């Protein structure tokens, strides 16, 4: 095999806000050669095709996605990170075990503790040895197949990611009458994109009950919001002709349309993480990680939407920057003595918590709080933290917890957790 073999100090996979944030901070703090690889021809990640504003500082009203993406790119490059686009990390050479040369194939001498990844780009094949790896591969929306929506296979079925690229990056015609599935912020972004493209949004659909406040604020002059409804079928052979919905009470309804956008329902792009043998968290489906962004494989860190599905771009970027300090400690060999990480788990209707492992003593998650999601609306819930039957904390939320949106749990109880104890459970009561 003819692979160009090279070595770097830190390899960052993915140049979205998270990877660019990590690369910028690492390069600025003297981590050595920091290389960010991006498989798309343009760096910036998802914001590249989010033409609405709302990115970056909330106080300033926010930038458009493409502007925000450019700022992230500029910051990383200016700090001295090497950014290469059109280059895909395709796999690990030493897949399951971290480190020792004896584990890798004979043609891949890997210094103890280093990671070796294979890369494809127009310039050829490479094999890159890195002392630390930061995975920032993002998340995607589940497509129609993964949501098991039955029916025909007509054209006109989109996710928001595909829709935004079609409209904003390629100027492709979309359709004329659309139904948007999902009422989370990303669903509204999809509706905005449709309107920009001259498509009439005939309905938005959510399986959730109506929210009293949102109903008052949103419906003026906008499309109807159908609540407590799920998609049970798509009709049409060549082109979509309708979406069939079922209301919680059993009634069904077919809405004629030629376009449907399936929004939200994010799943981490965890292929590389799994191929590298990283333990996944059963809730997030991203790599299990601790407040220092450490995964189950020493020297492999993870940041951004890969960890937890969609968050605001600013959060992803901050995670990337926050991961720099633990990566630097790893490079310097000053990692605190290994401690068995204690898993964190949630009870239904909570879906997941992130981070989902405890870290070294004193380590705190971003902004001193954990992020969570719920499957159904909870009005002013109390989050109870227990370990082995012992209550560690109890926190009342001031706002309702709503599906598809983050809410938080303060991390103050962490020092009360027994590092030798069992799983810490979070329950909403």
């Amino acid at each position, binding site marked *: 095999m003819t692979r160009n073999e090279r070595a770097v100090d830190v390899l960052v996979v993915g140049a979205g806000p998270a990877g660019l944030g990590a690369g910028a901070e690492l390069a600025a703090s003297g981590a050595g050669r920091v290389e960010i690889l991006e498989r798309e021809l343009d760096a910036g990640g998802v914001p590249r095709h989010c033409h609405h504003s709302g990115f970056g500082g909330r106080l300033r009203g926010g930038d458009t996605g493409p502007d925000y993406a450019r700022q992230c790119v500029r910051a990383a490059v200016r700090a001295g990170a090497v950014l290469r686009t059109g280059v895909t990390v395709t796999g690990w050479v030493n897949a399951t075990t971290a480190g020792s040369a004896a584990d890798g194939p004979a043609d891949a001498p890997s210094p103890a503790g280093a990671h070796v990844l294979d890369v494809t780009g127009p310039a050829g094949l490479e094999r890159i040895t890195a002392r630390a790896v930061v995975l920032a591969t993002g998340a995607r929306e589940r497509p129609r197949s993964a949501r098991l929506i039955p029916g025909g296979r007509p054209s006109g079925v989109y996710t928001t990611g595909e829709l935004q690229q079609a409209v904003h990056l390629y100027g492709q015609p979309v359709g004329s009458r659309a139904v948007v599935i999902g009422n989370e912020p990303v669903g509204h972004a999809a509706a905005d994109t449709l309107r920009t493209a001259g498509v009439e949004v005939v309905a938005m659909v959510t399986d959730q009950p109506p929210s009293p406040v949102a109903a008052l604020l949103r419906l003026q002059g906008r499309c109807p919001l159908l609540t407590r409804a799920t998609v*049970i079928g798509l009709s049409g052979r060549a082109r979509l002709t309708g979406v069939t919905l079922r209301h919680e009470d059993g009634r069904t309804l077919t809405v004629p349309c030629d376009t449907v956008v399936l929004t939200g329902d994010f799943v981490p792009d965890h292929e590389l993480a799994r191929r590298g043998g990283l333990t996944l968290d059963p809730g997030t489906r991203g790599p299990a990680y601790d407040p220092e962004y450490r995964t189950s494989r020493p020297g492999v860190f993870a940041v951004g939407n890969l960890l937890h599905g969609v968050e605001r771009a600013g959060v992803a970027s901050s995670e990337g920057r926050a991961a720099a300090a633990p990566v630097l400690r790893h490079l310097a060999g000053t990692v605190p003595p290994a401690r068995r990480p204690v898993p964190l788990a949630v009870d239904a209707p909570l879906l997941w918590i992130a981070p989902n492992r405890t870290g070294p003593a004193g380590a705190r998650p971003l902004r001193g709080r954990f992020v969570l999601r719920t499957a159904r609306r909870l009005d002013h819930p109390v989050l109870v933290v227990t370990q082995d039957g012992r209550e560690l904390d109890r926190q009342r939320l001031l706002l309702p917890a709503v599906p598809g949106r983050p809410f938080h749990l303060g991390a103050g109880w962490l020092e009360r957790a027994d590092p030798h104890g069992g799983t810490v459970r979070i329950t909403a009561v």
Partner: protein
Amino acid sequence: MTPTVTTSGDLPGGATYDVTVIGGGVVGAAVARELAKYPLRTALVEARDDIGEGTSKANTAILHTGFDAVPGSLEARLVREGQRLLAGYATGSGIPVERVGALLVAWDEEQRALLPGLLAKAERNGYHAGRLLGAEELYGREPRLGPGALGALEIPDESIICPWTTPLAYATQAVRAGVHLHLGCRVLSIESGPYSGSDTGSGAAGGRHTLTTSRGPLHTRYLVNAAGLYADEIDRRMGLDTFTVTPRRGELMVFDKLARDLVRHILLPVPTAAGKGVLVAPTVFGNVLLGPTSEELDDKTDTDSSADGLHFLQEKGRRILPELLDEEVTAVYAGLRAATGQEDYRIQAHPDRRCVTVGGIRSTGLTASMAIAAHVTGLLDGIGLDLGTPRELPAVTMPNLGEAFPRPYLRADLIGRDPAYGTIVCHCERVTLGEIRDALSATVPPGSPDGLRRRTRAGGGRCQGFACGPAVRALFEGARP
């Protein structure tokens, strides 16, 4: 010779074809390829905008040994011969095949009791490598199998194959050897009369058919009806009332590539009185397939999936390979088997009509295609078509879509010569710009982004276009005349 592939407008006029094959599925394409060996004027006409758009694109993609066919039937013979022919052809032409072997898993005593009989049946079908396995050996071979399996019958030669490349390879080779391919050309009616042209070869069986198609008239001396689900209707247009096709739908689920390591063999159900059951099989693309269902319909276009069907498959799959259900589903599709109320194929020559009907190629047509083609050619000879002397066809090399063989994104040699093979466009399936460009300018080019997917895998991965959909569509549109 410039290949003749037409997709729109009036059909080119000119001399009467010697043979016209109706239907560009895997069977029709195989027949056209076989006829291409002979000095004949042959046409392949297909209603859809591409080869293999019917049942041939939506099956379970297994290259069967025919171990469980009805001994002595035509199907048993053609599947056995077809498997050998296609396995050899695939190696030479770059169609991915993996000999993973099959295990028929018995989940209860009734099923276990049936295994020795199935082994004996395999022997009667000329298949001698079958072997019975106990539970312990079975779990050693398939550690992720759900609990409760009692044993299995092993058929080591059952293989998986690329269902899309196969008909394309046939059609490509046929077209390059001079067969005219007319796409978007639906046969509407057939009139058969005495032959009055100046071409050679009239004689005793002289006479010609005039096909009225959606693209104008077409004249031909002989006809092969390989219209799949519509073979009964084509026959009826010629005044033949031989059988009725009832579509039998099979729904399937394709699981993420990250599930591939869960299973090593094709896990076949033991056929019982209650039906053929559901299988779990790897695909040559590196995914895992679960299906099919079996449901009689009366709509020949109903390839919808259903909530009940998917639910049924999930239940079956959970029993066979519990961890499979934790993985993401990449695709769901349905195919229609052309059932005719008879187990065996219905391949019949009609000497007075100068026609061969290839009907009822229900659930083994991919495997048997090359043997069916040879058989049909023999039947044409038998009803008076003077075939002439055959020649070897120039070999064809198809782009590799199989995970078990090196794909362009891993080939330094290709990328070194042309960076487009290092430019990945579809990330989930790792399809490069070079491959897409090649497919768009191939001998038989795609008629839609879907056709491009069947030639390259572009857009067929876990994200279903979230990342690359618009880019792939733009490349497709950009290549359109």
